[in-house]
């Protein structure tokens, strides 16, 4: 155990976060490995341990001979204060060794508001924050995950980014590192070669110039770095690495269950959804693969619940046969199956009966917008009729609570669209009482959850301004005042955090000094409402002379050079522009299964782009 650790553990909340030793965690002989990899999740243990990507890459890297990958999470503020007071540096959970002694320090970037934690974790580890201040080959800071698609705000701190899926790319990078460590290369020599691994982006090899209006004038590669870096992806999902076991935490985490991935990508093309474009094209696993992986996970972990994960699980083309296959053993083993992402338009009684045969969880749907016009603008392709049919099916099946997700602040939105959210909620309540088989004395509960729209890179709305905080507040008030029944519970996300998320989602390298200043002012855990302070962030922006509104609330022109234009996720800028113009005309685009819309993802030579439709 880490020296001095046991003396502080009983002074903090949930000490189980900080001790490691969980079932299936990987312990290797320090003397028998030559590469130490610290896999850092910039949030607390319970959040990070729920993340599937980390589980996959942890097992994938530990499968490599001579490589030991360990887990690191952000300590909660009580623990951090004691660690700083007693000079205990950030350590990895498996060995207890300080992160500063590791070869490679990797971060996964799941949301923009975790950037302050990335800096704080490096600081707590005693690693220089700025990439330019780190010498030698060790303490190489790398990062991947969805936010790496616009990594520019972190360009000052991270040596290299992984674009896309890491199963192959991360291992190739580690092998290259090993070769250079043996040779005794300098950091610069290594980075120049790393830039040639497809999918690896080395920001220090690109020079960014800005024009007088503050927009980007040019991005120029040097030292032989490629002009465009294209994301990596796994094309054969059945052959792609998937762990046989998960580390099983002692304490309860956010998603405490076995997770099987049924496919990557999404056929839908909702215009606000970054994931829907980043992970194109859709690539499914076979029923046999998913079934085998579920079985193996349940056996090695003891979990009695399986979540079938993907961006939209009811779009899995073989969902019914997968459920049949799973039910042949899950029923007997008292194992429940949950489908986290159901769509309104293809939810069937058959699926419902299958998942409720053992255990039943709540039902959640995401119509995203309150009126048909606005749903067409965002290309949600869900009708009110379908929603009503679905909730009626659910109510007659015995469900009595439904949660509906919406966004406010979408492009072209009016107050009537906002009122439409409440009206839709009311219609769902009415559908419950219209059900003739409803049990006596049982009430209905409809939760409407509204988050503020954040325009993201690599979406058709990447040029859109975000509503100002004042506009979002007005819409929130309008939504609450439009609800007239106590059967509807209405909640909304904090507009301040949506604003800051929007700034970093489309930010450039000039946000680096702001991040550094915000860190100095004590910004951390910004994804946690009780810790986020917009005032502190504004202070950091002011100190650096940077306007956050320039990034969040400005409409960009179609010909502006965007900070992420030198990165390529397969979907073309022309396609995004076409989709944006169709959005203004409230015109929808068919999904990938119905018809190809030539987004560009076919360049990867696989997935749904090459299937018979």
């Amino acid at each position, binding site marked *: 155990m880490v020296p001095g650790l046991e*003396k502080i553990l009983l002074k903090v909340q949930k000490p189980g976060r900080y001790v490691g030793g969980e079932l299936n965690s990987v312990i290797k002989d320090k003397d028998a490995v030559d590469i130490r990899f610290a896999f850092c999740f910039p949030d607390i243990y319970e959040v990070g341990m729920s993340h599937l990507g980390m589980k996959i890459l942890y097992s994938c890297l530990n499968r490599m001979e001579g490589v030991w990958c360990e887990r690191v999470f952000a300590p909660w503020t009580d623990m951090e204060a004691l660690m700083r007071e007693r000079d205990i540096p950030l350590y990895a959970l498996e060995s207890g060794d300080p992160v500063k002694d590791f070869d490679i320090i990797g971060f996964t970037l799941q949301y923009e508001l975790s950037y302050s934690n990335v800096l704080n974790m490096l600081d707590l580890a005693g690693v220089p924050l700025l990439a330019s201040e780190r010498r030698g080959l060790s303490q190489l800071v790398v990062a991947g995950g969805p936010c790496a698609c616009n990594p520019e705000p972190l360009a000052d701190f991270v040596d290299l980014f992984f674009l896309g899926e890491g199963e192959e790319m991360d291992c190739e990078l580690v092998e290259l590192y090993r070769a250079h460590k043996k040779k005794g290369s300098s950091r610069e020599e290594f980075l120049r070669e790393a830039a040639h691994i497809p999918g690896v982006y080395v920001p220090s090899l690109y020079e960014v110039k800005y024009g007088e209006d503050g927009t980007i004038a040019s991005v120029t590669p040097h030292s032989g770095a490629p002009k465009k870096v294209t994301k990596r992806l796994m094309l054969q999902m059945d052959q792609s690495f998937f762990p046989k076991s998960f580390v099983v935490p002692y304490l309860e985490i956010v998603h405490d269950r076995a997770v099987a991935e049924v496919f990557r990508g999404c056929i839908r093309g909702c215009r606000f959804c970054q994931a829907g474009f980043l992970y194109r094209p859709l690539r499914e696993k076979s029923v046999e693969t998913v079934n085998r992986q579920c079985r193996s996970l349940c056996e090695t972990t003891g979990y009695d619940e399986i979540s079938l994960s993907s961006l939209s699980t009811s779009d899995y083309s073989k969902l019914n046969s997968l459920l049949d296959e799973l039910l042949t053993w899950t029923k007997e083993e008292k194992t429940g199956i949950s489908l986290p992402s159901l769509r309104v338009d293809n939810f069937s009684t058959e699926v419902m009966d299958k998942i409720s045969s053992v255990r039943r969880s709540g039902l959640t749907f995401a119509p995203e917008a309150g009126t048909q016009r606005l749903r067409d603008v965002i290309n949600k392709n869900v009708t009110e009729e379908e929603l009503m049919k679905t909730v009626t099916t659910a109510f007659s099946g015995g469900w009595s609570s439904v949660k509906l997700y919406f966004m406010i602040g979408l492009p072209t939105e009016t107050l009537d669209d906002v009122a439409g959210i409440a009206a839709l909620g009311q219609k769902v309540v009415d559908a419950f009482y219209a059900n003739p088989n409803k049990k006596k004395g049982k009430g209905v509960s409809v939760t409407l959850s509204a988050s503020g729209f954040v325009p993201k890179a690599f979406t058709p709305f990447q040029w859109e301004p975000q509503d100002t905080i004042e506009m979002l507040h007005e819409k929130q008030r309008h939504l609450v005042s439009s609800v007239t029944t106590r059967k509807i519970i209405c909640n909304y996300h904090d507009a301040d955090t949506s604003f800051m998320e929007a700034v970093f989602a489309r930010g450039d390298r000039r946000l680096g000094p702001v991040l550094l200043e915000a860190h100095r002012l004590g910004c951390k855990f910004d994804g946690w409402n009780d810790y986020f302070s917009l005032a502190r962030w504004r202070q950091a922006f002011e100190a650096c002379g940077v306007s956050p509104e320039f990034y969040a609330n400005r409409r960009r022109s179609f010909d502006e050079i965007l900070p992420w234009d030198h990165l390529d996720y397969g979907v073309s800028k022309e396609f995004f522009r076409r989709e944006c113009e169709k959005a203004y005309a409230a015109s929808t685009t068919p999904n990938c299964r119905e018809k190809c819309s030539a987004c560009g993802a076919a360049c990867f030579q696989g997935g749904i782009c090459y299937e018979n439709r």
Partner: protein
Amino acid sequence: MKTVRVWFRKTGAACYISHLDLTHCMARALHRSRIPLWYTQGFNPRAHMVFALPLPLGMEGARESVDIKIEEEQITMEEVQERLIRSLPATLPVIAVTEPKMKPGKIAWASYRLRLEPEQGSVEELAEKLNALLAQPEIPVDKHTKSGMAHFDLKPYLEELSASQEKETLKLSLFLPAGSEKNISPFLLTEALTAQQEAMFFCRSVRTNLYDADRKIFE
């Protein structure tokens, strides 16, 4: 269907697992072990598990127990033990599986061993502070209970306290009322020592055993 009592120790890092998390951990271990269990017959079938007495967070347990219900014709007690050893982490070793002789409700006493390492001053000074605490006319303490805060005098419960010095640690052993009727944590003593005598120390603690009202060992 038959109830068996699984005896285990909670050691090392496992002492930082709360009782609630221990129940989840045990449930998963049982599931992994594929021991034929008897499940509750409700809408959400669950394996039956009754722990004799929860341990406070941060305390090790030398002789903990959990009762489970098995389909007896399908498995022997030896096999239950073997399979559980394989399914539980090394910090939760199973030491025996027996037929339960007493009901957990009969538990009335527990024995504890505490090791105090001074973080300020010497072990002799710490021992003096302990003696000063015990010499107080009373040792007022507060305890969270279901019906709010209870305020009482700890002194009468410390008659069986014995202390000895071993190198740089002060070893205490004590018997305290335990169980569903009345439960007094030894941490009340260490907290009082810090609060009322300003002693600074790090404490390791183990619950060594459980007893009924007649001080017969819980079996």
